[in-house]
């Protein structure tokens, strides 16, 4: 039989037929029957460390072989056989016990060894089949780009999952069989004395003896002043290096492996995003995401994404927003209150930008119209939040949002706030004298800012209420206070505030009564902030907690109106860097709507001083900047 088989390939007309193996079973190493072996820590005790390998220890080295073989399963390999032919196929199984035979599926002979040179064009193309290559024929198995550990395996996976999508590389990939010249290795025509190091450079890719910087310096006198630590965190090299590395990679794996609801992130990581697959290609690959996001508010990502996509549909948008709000709210409740506060602060600090001012103004104008706007406010806030880059269109749309949604939001807010009051009130370092009408002016101004996605219902409510509160100054003593709270919704404090604001939300016009019940979240003993015109601008190098009043007393304003919810902080709208920085956001809750624009502090700029609000001796609240220990999870693009 062997002779037969050997003879058959000689004819160039036929490709290799199916080879029969003498010993049939030997060829099959069922991967499934090696369950524990590869995955166990067998390799751990391999005595294969760099020193000489004892040939007799078949265990560890054999294990490694089996490990390698297991990883090869499913990969395309080329098998070189004795007569020089190359068979390409998908590695299916191998027998590694005694002799080494392999089984390839969908295998084809690529190069016929019996015919030297180019494959004759009249060769009949054969259909790929399963081939068994017995060990005596086997010379070499060559796998291109074989991934040997699970990390690489993971990375390779996403590509296979998206079969429905035909991307360019896939399409062009299929044309690989295109006839191409056989590439031969380049050899210099004659030994060129000008390039003596050629051999050294390319032969040993891991041991190059050429340092470009040295060469540059000697040849041109150019000194390199590159210091890596200028651009990145200094690596602490030392005995703990290894542990740090392990820890870092563990964290990296954790982050990359964590569940995300952002479809883009999910796609990159190869996980199935929980979102339904209704996302068309456009939203998956080309639409710009309009909401500001950070990993903590994953639940909202999808909803916000939808919101962003459904920009045109105001109603649905509102509902989405509402949902996101409640989600966010619940999420906020769940997370640590202090963190929320900080994140809130962060949001506040990062959110406002000068550009917003105009929008805010516009918003305020709209709001000023009265309680009717109130209804629309909450929803408008949410959209604002979702799209960090507010544009006036959105503002307009916001005004047309569903009032029902808002109402439901408010209801939820109230519920949640009630439950969280104790928690939030304690956590707050600074309590805005919410009772005071204070917030609203500032709050209103922040209203549009509350477009920060993170802002939850409270924000909406607050902003709305704030605005209307301002308008109807007198009666709404409670309202304003509530409003501000709502605007600061973004943090847990917002929850507290939200509850406050939620109250009024329910009954826009009246309200005060309900407000009073919620006031407990606010710190009645909080001092008011006195504007200090001489305050220096704040530089974000120090710690974050606003425990230490910078000047006068800064209070954490849970009532921050429309403070941009930090939800969006991390969003890379340029605010990213300020993530770690503490930027106080100052806003004047009492300022008239028109004045508020200046209350917004540019998150990145040390405009602290300028932000001092205008004119009115109203308490100015500022949001403490984002606490450094707040872990930023997730990435926003």
């Amino acid at each position, binding site marked *: 039989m062997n002779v037969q088989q050997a003879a058959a390939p000689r004819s160039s007309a036929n490709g290799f037929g199916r080879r029969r193996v003498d010993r049939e079973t030997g060829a099959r190493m069922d991967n499934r029957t090696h369950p524990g072996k590869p995955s166990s820590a067998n390799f751990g005790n391999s005595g294969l460390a760099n020193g000489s390998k004892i*040939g007799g220890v078949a265990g560890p080295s054999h294990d*490694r072989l089996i*490990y*390698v073989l297991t990883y090869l399963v499913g990969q395309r390999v080329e098998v070189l056989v004795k007569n020089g032919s190359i068979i390409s196929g998908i590695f299916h199984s191998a027998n*590694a016990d005694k002799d080494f035979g392999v089984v390839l599926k969908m295998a084809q002979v690529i190069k016929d060894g019996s015919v030297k040179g180019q494959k004759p064009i009249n*060769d009949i193309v054969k259909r790929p089949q399963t081939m068994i290559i017995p060990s005596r024929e086997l010379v070499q198995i060559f796998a291109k780009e074989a991934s040997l*550990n699970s990390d690489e395996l993971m990375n390779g996976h996403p590509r296979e999952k998206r079969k429905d999508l035909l991307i360019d590389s896939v399409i062009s990939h299929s044309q690989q069989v295109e006839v191409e010249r056989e590439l031969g290795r380049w050899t210099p025509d004659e030994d060129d004395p000008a390039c003596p190091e050629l051999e050294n450079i390319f032969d040993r890719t891991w041991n190059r003896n050429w340092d470009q910087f040295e060469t540059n310096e000697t040849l041109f006198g150019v000194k390199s002043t590159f210091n890596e630590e200028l651009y990145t965190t200094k690596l602490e090299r030392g005995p703990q290096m290894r542990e740090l590395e392990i820890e870092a990679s563990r964290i990296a794996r954790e982050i990359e492996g964590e569940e995300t609801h952002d479809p883009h992130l999910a796609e990159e990581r190869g996980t199935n995003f929980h979102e339904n697959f209704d996302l068309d290609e456009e939203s998956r690959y080309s639409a710009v995401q309009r909401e500001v996001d950070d990993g903590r508010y994953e639940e909202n990502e999808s909803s916000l994404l939808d919101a962003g996509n459904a920009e045109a549909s105001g109603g649905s948008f509102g509902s989405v927003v509402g949902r996101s709000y409640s989600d966010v709210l619940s999420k906020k409740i769940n997370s640590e209150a202090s963190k929320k506060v900080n994140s809130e602060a962060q949001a506040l600090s990062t959110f406002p930008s000068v550009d917003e001012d105009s929008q805010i103004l516009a918003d305020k104008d709209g709001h000023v119209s009265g309680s009717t706007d109130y209804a629309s406010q909450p929803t408008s806030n949410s959209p604002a939040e979702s799209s960090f880059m507010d544009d006036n269109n959105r503002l307009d749309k916001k005004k047309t949002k569903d009032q029902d949604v808002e109402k439901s939001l408010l209801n939820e807010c109230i519920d949640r706030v009630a439950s969280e009051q104790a928690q939030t009130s304690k956590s707050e370092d600074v309590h805005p004298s919410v009772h005071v009408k204070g917030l609203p002016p500032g709050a209103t101004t922040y209203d549009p800012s509350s477009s920060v996605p993170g802002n939850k219902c409270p924000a909406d409510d607050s902003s709305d209420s704030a605005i209307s509160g301002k308008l109807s100054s007198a009666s709404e003593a409670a309202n304003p206070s509530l409003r501000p709270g709502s605007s600061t919704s973004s943090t847990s404090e917002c929850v507290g505030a939200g509850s406050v604001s939620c109250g009024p939300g329910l009954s826009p016009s009246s309200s005060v009564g309900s407000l009073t019940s919620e006031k407990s979240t606010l710190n009645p003993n909080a001092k008011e902030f006195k504007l200090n015109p001489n305050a220096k601008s704040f530089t974000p190098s120090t710690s974050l907690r606003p425990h230490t009043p910078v000047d006068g007393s800064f209070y954490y304003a849970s009532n921050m109106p429309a403070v941009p919810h930090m939800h969006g902080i991390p969003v890379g709208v340029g605010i990213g860097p300020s993530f770690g920085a503490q930027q106080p956001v100052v806003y004047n809750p009492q300022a008239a709507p028109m004045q508020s624009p200046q209350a917004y502090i540019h998150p990145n700029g040390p405009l602290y001083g300028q932000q001092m609000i205008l004119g009115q001796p109203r308490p100015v609240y500022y949001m403490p900047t984002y606490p450094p220990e707040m872990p930023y999870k997730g990435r926003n693009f």
Partner: protein
Amino acid sequence: MDGANGEEFAVGCILAIETTLGDEFEGQIITYDRPSNILVLQEGATKAGTGRNLRLLKANYIKDFTLLGRGEDPLDLKKCYVDLPSIQAREEAALRQAEVEAERIGIGVTSEAQSIYDALSKTLPVYWDKTVIVVMKEVRVCSPYLPENVSGGTPAANERVKKVLELERKRLQVRSPGQF
């Protein structure tokens, strides 16, 4: 050759190997299995992208080798976990993919015909019907796949296929002179 080289085949070593068949390559040893006499090498130094090339070579085909250096164990033993289900899934996916690609290949046709088919398939929907290339479900091109062999379909489609065929043939000729 086996016995003498038992000591040298230590894990992590970098060798330059020449085989009896004339191939030359360099790689870092991952493992050497005595019973089956297989040497597993890893080519490529940097962990770029999806890994490096892997070679499993039967040691008795090594004609000559030189030790270039010693390196660390290329396998990170702590990371060596095999996720069987995912590997099997990968295999299935690869098989599916290969089958899809195999559809392109005609059975029993010359490689010239296959080249023409591939060229046509870049711009036109084609599939094989035994040894006949069917374009746009109507136009058929049979052996020897010259413009004269184009038949069927509407005159417009027919013309178009003829033209494309001519162009592709010309291109193939330029690319691989002497073949066509």
